[in-house]
């Protein structure tokens, strides 16, 4: 009786899970689950377009989108190249400006106290409405679009970078000063490395916004680019090609998102080692 009871209780004990093996399984799940969801989504879409009572111009099937998109690949590639150019140049302008402004604000306390509330307020300005104005003022070339993309990402990037610069431990600053460091040296040795993770996070959040704002700026008026491509095809009821351009837009966003991880590995090599050590 006792033996049977003991045996039963052993069997009832929950199985110990090896945490390492478990984390490998989790990684696999993390990749497989969204992939399966994506495939399911496309399957439903394909089924709805095939057997549903809708015209191909209203809801093109994903297969049709891919086939016809591939057929028009030269035009799409040309448009995508133009959009990518605006996006990347706008981002570069924004990064340079944001780092400069954040550094100045971090260094000069009165300036920070004056401008920080204004910057936070300015974040609520619907910058997208500037797009038509920019076109009216500066024309249809790439310049005003780069400026718009830059302005959209400037504020969030400035604020996250400034927050990073200010996040440095004040005791560490006192320690450095006691070692004879000037304010500039404290900035370079302590504040800049402290700000890098904030900067990268700010950049990562910006990547999806920024492609959308590039496309919107083209939507308002451009000679080439995915925005103008989508608008033209929409007017011709080529919804399949509109969707094809949307897919390319998503791809650009994902590539930029991945690029922030590459940048992180480059700028913060210790972070990767720390994450690996924690795993």
């Amino acid at each position, binding site marked *: 009786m006792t033996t049977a009871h003991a045996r039963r209780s052993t069997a009832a004990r929950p199985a110990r899970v090896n945490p390492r093996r478990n984390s490998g399984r989790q990684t696999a799940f993390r990749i497989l689950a969204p992939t399966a969801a994506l495939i399911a989504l496309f399957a439903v879409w394909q089924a709805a377009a095939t057997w549903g009572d809708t015209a191909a111009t209203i809801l093109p099937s994903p297969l049709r989108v891919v086939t016809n998109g591939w057929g028009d690949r030269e035009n799409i590639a040309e448009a995508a190249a133009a959009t990518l150019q605006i996006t990347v140049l706008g981002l570069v302008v924004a990064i340079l400006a944001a780092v400069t402004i954040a550094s100045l604000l971090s260094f000069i306390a009165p300036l920070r106290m004056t401008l920080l509330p204004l910057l936070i307020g300015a974040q609520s300005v619907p910058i997208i409405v500037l797009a038509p104005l920019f076109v009216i003022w500066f024309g249809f070339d790439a310049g005003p679009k780069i400026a718009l993309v830059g302005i959209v990402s400037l504020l969030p990037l400035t604020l996250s970078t400034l927050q990073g610069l200010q996040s440095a431990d004040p005791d560490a600053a006192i320690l450095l000063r*006691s*070692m004879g*460091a000037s304010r500039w*040296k404290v900035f370079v040795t302590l504040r800049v490395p402290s700000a890098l993770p904030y900067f990268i996070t700010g950049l990562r959040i910006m990547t999806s916004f920024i492609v959308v704002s590039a496309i919107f700026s083209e939507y308002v008026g451009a000679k080439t680019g995915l925005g103008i491509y989508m608008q033209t095809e929409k007017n011709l009821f080529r919804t399949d090609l509109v969707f094809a351009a949307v897919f390319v837009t998503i791809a650009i966003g994902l590539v930029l998102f991945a690029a922030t991880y590459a940048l992180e590995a480059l700028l913060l090599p210790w972070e990767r*080692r720390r994450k690996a050590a924690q795993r």
Partner: protein
Amino acid sequence: MTSPLLTVDSVAKSFQSPRGDSTPVIRDISMRLDPGEFVSVIGPSGSGKSTLFTLLAEQTEPTSGSVTFHGDRDPKQPFSAYMPQKDLLFPWLSVEDNAALGLVLRGMSKRQSRERIAELLPTFRLEGRAKAYPFELSGGMRQRVALLRTVVQDRPVLLLDEPFGALDYLTRTELQLWLADLCAEKGLSVVLITHDVPEALFLSDRVYVLSNRPATIRMVLEQDAPRPRTLDYLETSEFKHNERVLLSELTESTRLGEGI
């Protein structure tokens, strides 16, 4: 009697609030540090130990009285190097670069500073860890890196602010034994702030006991036993007697405290 390296003469320190009220933190403190001496300052928490420390580190000026350094010094550099309570190691720098911070800030090349650190790593029991990052080290190792960063600056006086406060009992004891040897071997002149009575007694030639705020020196305890001491010292009647004296003095000062 040797001539002192550092004297603190009737120092007082008050802080002005924005409304203009003046809060005295230190009422009257006098103390001395001779070359090669190890001196501890012990007191109840909130007694103004950290303020005394900022005065010794030349980060603030006393309201009255003076802190005078008598030894040779580089007039452009502070006479002391200080080790704060938190290790404050930078997560983005390797062990060698963290330890070399003071040297690099003084204008030494990166290569030279790394060579200098490499010479000292064995003494600080950090062999083979030059390229490691702080998060890869144990608490005791991190504290030894922070101490190396302080010692390598080659300033005449070392200021240690509760350096082992955050460590577990065993690691702390191990580091105290090691620090005792290191200080005696290198002839370092040290001021240690602590609230750990056995630590102060084990390491010091002299212990200053602070009163509650505003701080004065309640008691000075001289210890003649030669340094570095071993664990056997904890068994001696001198240690046990002094421990009792200090504890009763400290608990007394807490009980008599006003305004806590």
